[in-house]
């Protein structure tokens, strides 16, 4: 069977036969003026036909370092100093003066001086004092070191193995002076097999195979004459560096869609919030541990926030102190307006919910109001694999007449069913601003486990009454953090991944889990 090769491959084979030596691939590519990849693909064709091959060899390449390159231009420090002496016709000089003139860094200056002495161009006699040198030579021929340095004027990179014994000594000197770089390289040596050396070119058929259809081929109709080179269709292509939505945003958007489909309107509120909307309006007593520095971020700037209308502030104050008109006995302490004015990075989106209740009051709105929020919150936590100081909270709220705990269970099961969890369970729980309260867990079939999702409940009358939301109008609420679910969803073991952007992961992460 005759051998078929592409024209380019035949040309390369011809040259290799003429040369009749082994040759390094990149050198050959340079000589032939072809791309290295094109050459290697041609060599692969030769390999396929048992005509040639290559082997890999390790080699060292040496080149000048950044500092070395500057000496190529300006001369070594010793030459630079000498030039000063010669230019000014100085035979003897105080070292300090010379140094001032030379404008060299202290270290380099002394390297230069020591080499001047080594070259026997100058001397420094103890008798005349340490600080003086004398020019003693008449001629200053190029040193071995300088000759070696010049080698790099034409060739930036030199093969270490071809250095002579003498040159190796120069190399060591320069290398010690950190003027050289030495790097290990793998090179490919191309050779022909016996068959490749002996095969007459005339016996080889030119293969009319192309890898790409060109516009010219199509318009001229010559495409018919060519074979299209087959691709290995089983191999994956290189990773596409394309645009993509962040996995967490993807999940956030899925949840926002669920809320939308359930008839909820999205709300947004301040991230830097007053303690008033964060805690006081939620009936958290002012000595509550959750308000302390180890749990909540407070701000030095801005230090205080403005409080809302006086009568509402008074209503909240009364509720804390004696229950106000809510029917509660209250906490029984003296409420301090200044504590409520403090600014915090909101630890929950419920602060925004409170603002929505206030808006409901101010606008004298009608029920039902169904709103949701998926937004950032902050807790004073040290960051580690499973803790964040800033994360995303999901919250859903219904303001309506005669809504019940059983309605809330209905909402929760619908919400989590849409998230893909078929079974939910609610248990007694405790949150300072809801009563009754429920903890929610869902069954995750992939792990055959119950997962704690978050909290839920009906807002306490102490929370809603100051905003005119009174029996039989009630507020149902539920909420949860998002990142823990995202970890399961995307199979991550480190919660910080969602905010430190490992680009490889972002490029490769699938959305459907």
């Amino acid at each position, binding site marked *: 069977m005759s051998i078929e090769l592409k024209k380019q491959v035949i040309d390369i084979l011809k040259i290799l036969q003429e040369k009749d030596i082994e040759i390094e691939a990149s050198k050959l590519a340079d000589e032939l003026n072809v791309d290295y990849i094109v050459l290697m693909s041609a060599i692969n064709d030769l390999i396929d036909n048992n005509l040639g091959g290559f082997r890999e060899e390790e080699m060292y390449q040496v080149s000048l370092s950044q500092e070395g390159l500057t000496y190529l231009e300006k001369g070594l420090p010793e030459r630079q100093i000498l030039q000063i002496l010669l230019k000014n016709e100085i035979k003897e000089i105080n070292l300090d003066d010379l140094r001032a003139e030379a404008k060299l860094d202290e270290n380099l200056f002394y390297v230069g001086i020591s080499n001047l002495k080594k070259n026997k161009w100058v001397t420094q006699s103890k008798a005349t004092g340490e600080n003086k040198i004398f020019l003693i030579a008449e001629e200053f021929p190029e040193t071995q070191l300088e000759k070696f340095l010049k080698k790099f004027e034409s060739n930036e990179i030199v093969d270490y193995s071809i250095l002579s014994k003498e040159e190796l000594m120069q190399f060591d000197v320069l290398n010690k002076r950190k003027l050289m770089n030495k790097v290990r390289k793998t090179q490919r040596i191309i050779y022909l097999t016996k068959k490749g050396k002996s095969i007459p070119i005339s016996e080889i058929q030119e293969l009319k195979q192309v890898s790409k259809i060109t516009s010219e081929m199509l318009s001229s109709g010559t495409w018919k004459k060519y074979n299209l080179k087959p691709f290995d269709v089983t191999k994956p292509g290189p990773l596409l560096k394309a*645009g*993509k939505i962040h996995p967490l945003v993807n999940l956030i958007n899925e949840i926002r869609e669920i809320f939308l489909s359930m008839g909820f309107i999205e709300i947004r509120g*301040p991230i830097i919030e007053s303690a008033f909307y964060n805690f006081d309006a939620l009936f958290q007593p002012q000595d509550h541990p959750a308000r302390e*520095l180890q749990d909540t971020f407070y701000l030095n700037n801005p230090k205080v926030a403005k409080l809302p209308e006086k009568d509402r502030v008074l209503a909240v104050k009364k509720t804390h102190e004696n229950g106000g008109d809510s*029917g509660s006995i209250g906490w029984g302490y003296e409420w301090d307006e200044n504590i409520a004015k403090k600014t915090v990075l909101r630890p929950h989106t419920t602060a925004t919910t409170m603002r929505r209740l206030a808006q409901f009051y101010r606008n004298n709105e009608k029920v039902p109001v169904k709103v949701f929020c998926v937004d950032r919150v902050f807790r004073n936590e*040290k960051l580690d694999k499973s803790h964040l100081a800033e994360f995303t909270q999901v919250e859903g709220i219904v303001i309506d007449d005669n809504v019940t705990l059983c309605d809330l269970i209905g909402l929760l099961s619908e919400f989590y069913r849409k998230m893909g969890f078929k079974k939910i369970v609610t248990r007694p729980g405790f949150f300072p601003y809801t009563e009754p309260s429920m903890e929610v867990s869902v069954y995750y079939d992939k792990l055959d486990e119950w997962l704690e999702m978050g909290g839920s409940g009906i807002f306490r009358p102490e929370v809603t009454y100051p905003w005119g939301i009174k029996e039989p109008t009630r507020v149902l609420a539920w909420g949860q953090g998002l990142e823990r679910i995202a970890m399961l969803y995307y199979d991550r073991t480190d919660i910080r991944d969602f905010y430190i952007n490992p680009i490889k992961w972002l490029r490769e992460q699938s959305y459907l889990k």
Partner: protein
Amino acid sequence: MPTIELKIERLERLVGKKLDLKELEYDLQWIGLDLEDTNVEEQKVKVEYNPNRPDYSSPEGIARALKGYYELELGIPSYEVRPGEITLNVDPSVKKVRPYIVCGVIRDIDLDEDEVATLMNIQEHLHWAVGRDRRKVAIGVHDLDKIIPPYRYTAVKPDSVSFIPLHGDGYPMNLEEILLLHDKGIEYAHILEGKDVYPIIFDNNDEVLSFPPIINGVLTTVTNDTENLFLDLTGTDFKAVNLALNILSTTLSDMGTKIESVKVNYQGGKEIITPNLNPKKWEVKKGYINDIIGLELSLTEMLKCFQKIRMDAKKSKKNGYLDIWVPAYRGDIMHPVDFTEECAIGYGYFNLPLTIREGGVGAYHPIQDFSSKIRKIMIGAGYLEILNFILTSSEKQYDFMKQNYDKTNIVEIANPVSKEYNTTRKKLLPQLMDTLLLNRSEEKPIRIFEVGDIILLDPDEETGTKREVHLSAASYHEEADFTEIRSTLDFIMISLGYENDFEIKPNKNLSYIDGRYGEIYLKGSKVGEIGEIHPEVLLNFKLEFPVAAFELNLQDFL
């Protein structure tokens, strides 16, 4: 959340029922307890209780609830308080330092090892959950037979009284010395900070029982031979000191001891007798409870629910109302609504049906909606979305970007977790640069964008700040330049239909290269900046290739 350890064998003894670990794990959740950990080998469980139920801080307290759940005992547990003769006189001088005290006497104690451990543990829990780390309530437990009544609660000058404190070196110390030198004094001195007199309890011979809320005297140390206890609870909240006393004394009573009352004599003839374990009566509308839960329980059914959670309930004389009695160890009932949860727990959350109420038309927030559109355009332009914290460091945000800033003019967190998170971001770009730093060895080109919140100081706003949504994009590779990023910006503007409404005005900015920077104007007002990043900024972020980037305020597009 606080946790306590329960030995199954001890719990079985208290409940009076054989308990299976698996069943117990299941059952505890329905009375508001969370099983943290099960130790099958040692037959122990660790349970978490909610801070509103400090009565769950002992096995005795949990057993009370379980007995109701299993219907072994229903209704309010009864506790006998024998009237005692011991009196404690309260001097008005305590008003300005630690105004309240209540006391109790516990007789015939014969505690085993576990019970002694419980007594220690419950004090710790009460100090935390009710006492706010002793500030609101501090507990003293004394050997009654070492002291001679009547006792006296008063306030004295710090250096006027000395006594030998518990856990000290065995030498008398005055109150000031205790705060400076004694371990407990150092730990709790802050509670008495700024006071010129300190609270103290003497017996009739002027021997010191206690220096609340710091330390007891060595005189009344409880030992194995102690037969009777005197309890003092001091604090700043009258309800809280009573609650802690009630929880402590009912738990001790469950251990088989006898409770005896103490006359606490506040000046002006106001004498109270404590502990007062009488249940508190509430009148609650039956319909209200059913309405909130969403059930239609009959009177009998509802009464049973309350009995199961260890309350007593009865049809009230008032039509449609219930009289409900709450045990004295419960401090979490503030409002009739609290009975709805109690009733639901009695009924069993697992029995609650779900109802579906549909309706309403949903909508996204306009800025979020717009952000989603922007994301789609950026994805189309080939940019990868990233997310960063709003928290950041002023170093990254300003110094690394060569931006000058005035410390008084940026958001400053008072208690940051670390220097890396001492402020909130004003621009997104610095964190994009940081993302490039962390990913600089990844395959290039790297083109990233973020749509996210930034925070600006604004004294006109209620919170002194406002949040705005920005878009920032950066391209990082050998060939990245102004032309490329300008094309990207143009693509956005065209996709939004603003191609004729915006212009770039050349300007200078320290973060960018001179001559390759401009400010973006939309309909005449500045909405952003675009350019090639300055080499010094690139080096600050340890980058090896050029970066071209822009940042846009999306708020201005709405």
